[in-house]
């Protein structure tokens, strides 16, 4: 059994026992490779009334390696318009890259991304959105993001 499976089993049991934080719901966790959550930003924010979906993909090395996390972009869901979120759903967030820690969890990542949206004041795409999306790898973990802005 992969190391990731045991850890994810524990996280799933905890979610089923204790539930998810407000605004976050588990959409599917049929295996230990891909999990989906919906994320709402509650309160008086620029995303009120919008519903987003987050996709987690795990390799066998989770949690030593971070999960690949992105917003779902399909017929049903769109990526939030945010300076750190590309229109293909990829997210530029340091905790998914060089600030990852193996003591973080799937729910901790959901909450961080939810608060990243909650603190945003202006809906805009990253300045290099078009260029990035054109050449972006399928898996956001293959991108070396440069974390240049901690204010939003």
């Amino acid at each position, binding site marked *: 059994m992969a190391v990731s499976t045991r*850890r994810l089993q524990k996280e799933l049991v905890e979610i089923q026992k204790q539930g998810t934080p407000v605004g976050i719901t588990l959409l599917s966790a049929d295996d230990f490779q891909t999990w989906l959550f919906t994320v709402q930003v509650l309160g008086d924010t620029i995303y009120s009334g919008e519903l987003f979906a987050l996709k987690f993909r795990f390799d066998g090395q989770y949690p030593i390696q971070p999960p690949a996390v992105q917003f779902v972009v399909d017929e049903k869901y769109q990526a939030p318009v945010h300076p750190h979120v590309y229109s293909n759903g990829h997210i530029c967030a340091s905790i998914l890259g*060089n600030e*990852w820690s*193996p003591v973080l969890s799937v729910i901790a990542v959901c909450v961080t991304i939810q608060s990243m949206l909650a603190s945003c004041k202006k809906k805009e795409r990253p300045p290099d959105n078009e260029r990035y999306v054109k050449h972006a790898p399928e898996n956001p973990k293959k991108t070396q993001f440069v974390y240049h802005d901690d204010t939003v």
Partner: protein
Amino acid sequence: MKVTVKNWHAIAQWRWDTGTNEDEGDGEGDVCGICRVPYEGCCPSCKMPGDDCPLIWGECSHVFHMHCLLQWIGTAASKQQCPMDRRPWVTAERKVNHSNGR
């Protein structure tokens, strides 16, 4: 009345001395933050808990299964930092509990 003992079962219990009392804490602090398995269990790569899968103490006071921590420290991404507080990882000498009469 005469009682004859026909058989008996010995039961023993052990735990790592992490410097906290058994009745302290919320019960959640007693798992390795990396694999989320109790300290007295073993890391995901081991089959037997105990001396074969020991704990490691940091100067920063955080405790992990040694194998879990070394796996993390072995990655470039860890920057050799404690996963809990991101301070440079320095392994501490195993704490000895002086209150146990030694």
